[in-house]
């Protein structure tokens, strides 16, 4: 199986991505994650002003198979949430790096980006996960 990756993004082991656009961190879930989930039917997002803590849940992505938490790849404050996604959860399947961004945040510690994987490392990680056959 081949998956899509965004070369501009950095990735967490729990399959979220973060992409810096100026000072703003845009966060979503990866193409591999949406493949595992299958058809997404519901997305629950935080509120503007909420504090994100690296590694802690920022919301929920629910498919016909499972409801999974999405974890914050970095800490920060939520500036904007993708409200349109709540009405169009299928965007997570269609365009995980584009229309289906979850939140935009002001990072509190840019140093945390170093904890994340670049595209090459993440591609390898996904291949290993796929080999294991788990999530």
């Amino acid at each position, binding site marked *: 199986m081949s998956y899509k990756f965004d070369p501009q993004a950095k990735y967490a082991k729990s399959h979220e991505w973060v992409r810096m656009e100026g000072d703003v961190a845009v966060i979503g879930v990866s193409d591999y994650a949406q493949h595992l989930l299958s058809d997404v039917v519901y997305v629950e997002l935080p509120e503007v002003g909420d504090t994100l803590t690296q590694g802690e849940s920022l919301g929920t992505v629910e498919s*016909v198979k499972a409801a999974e938490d999405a974890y914050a790849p970095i800490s920060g404050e939520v500036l904007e949430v993708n409200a349109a996604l709540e009405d169009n959860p299928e965007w997570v399947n269609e365009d995980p790096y584009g229309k289906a961004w979850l939140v935009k945040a002001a990072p509190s510690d840019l140093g945390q980006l170093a904890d994340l994987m670049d595209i090459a490392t993440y591609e390898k990680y996904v291949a290993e996960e796929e080999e294991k056959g788990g999530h």
Partner: protein
Amino acid sequence: MSEPLIYEISRAGRRAVSLPACDVPEAPFPADAVRADLPLPEVSEIDVVRHYTRLSQLNHSIDTGFYPLGSCTMKYNPKVNEVAARLPGFASLHPLQDALSAQGAMALIHSLQELLAEIAGFSAVTLQPAAGAHGELTGVLIMRKYLYDRGETQRDIILVPDSAHGTNPATTSMSGLKVMVVPSDARGNVNLEILRSLTAKHGPHLIGLMLTNPNTLGLFDENVEEVVRLVHEAGGLVYGDGANFNAILGIAKPGLLGFDVMHYNLHKTFSTPHGGGGPGSGAVGVAAFLADYLPGPIVVRDEDDEYAWQMPAKSIGRVKAFWGNFAVLVRAYTYIRMHGAEGLRQVSENAVLNANYLQARLRDVYPIPHSDRTCMHEFVAQGKLEGAPGINTMDIAKRLMDFDFHPPTVYFPLIVAEALMVEPTETESKETLDAFADTLIRIAEEARTDPELLKTAPHHAPVKRLDEVKAAKDMVLCYGPGCGG
């Protein structure tokens, strides 16, 4: 579906019951309580009887077919349980009846409390919670109150292995606590190395750990005593999810393994109709030092051999109105007394034997991640077949319905891709297990030779393949003239 909706059968003016002439003076309803329009179906009595009888016949049930729904323990429910629950002395009781006039029912509750404590190695039991997840919530609230009473109010984390039931993290959140996931190791046990680092790092903040054992992979944790020790060493308590207790009755006592709290799913392990078939009961057992925290009232026997309701001294309070789901308690009591100690042990031995027999028959056909180990009462296969790249677990599950088998639990646990979780239970014969295995083997063959047959299954069920995305996103919860819109 062949059966129309009741509103489609409705004909204006048709009615089921002709009321006798009124023999008291008629009085009008208050005008503001009267509706101009009440769109209920208008049907004759035979229309109603036939409609609902036909609907019931479209259902799959344990009384009509094999039901290997993993983790749900869809065992046969002996009919003697129903006879006992219908005895007029039980069935006609009023929940507000004076305790002195309900001594028989209270004796049963008291005896069941003691039987369950003995079976799982606990000191005290409450029968109040109405279902498994309710029992979990009760148990975690007990743990929290005990620790907070000791002044350890900084504790706010519960460790939950990734092989736990999904209700465990949900319970934690419901209790206002934080979930921290502990991954499994290569053998399907709790990863001790990671657990050690988590207890070292978060020890003073741990409420405890919730362990489903056997876990959702159908495996008994080989290091359970070390898991319990590590959590206790950090000052936390260990909660046992007893939903899989069916695998270890009379063989292992969680209380003696060091678990502090556990819920029992009386409706599963001790056989009462469940899964749309009736209410549950999530009794909770605790070690001696937590007995005072149980929700109440529980039944105690005083020195005059009289039974009385009592609220434990430091109780977390009531968790349910009245006395628990009493009719379920009668069935569970009956089941335990009909089997006796030796019989309950045989229940678990046969549940485990049946699961291992099926696993052995299927492991060369379907991937089963931990099939090198002896499973307990269930096992998790994968709907990923070599030579059939387009076929997934859902296709296999749907095709099983064509052979009158209820599909196994699908896509759970989440840690196994394309999971097919199979729990045959102890009540099935070798012939039934063989028929099921033969069918799964046949379906694996069909997946390679005629994948379209699976993709379009079921072919012989009352409804064909449903659009699950549409069902989840565009829910229509009300149909008919009463819904407006």
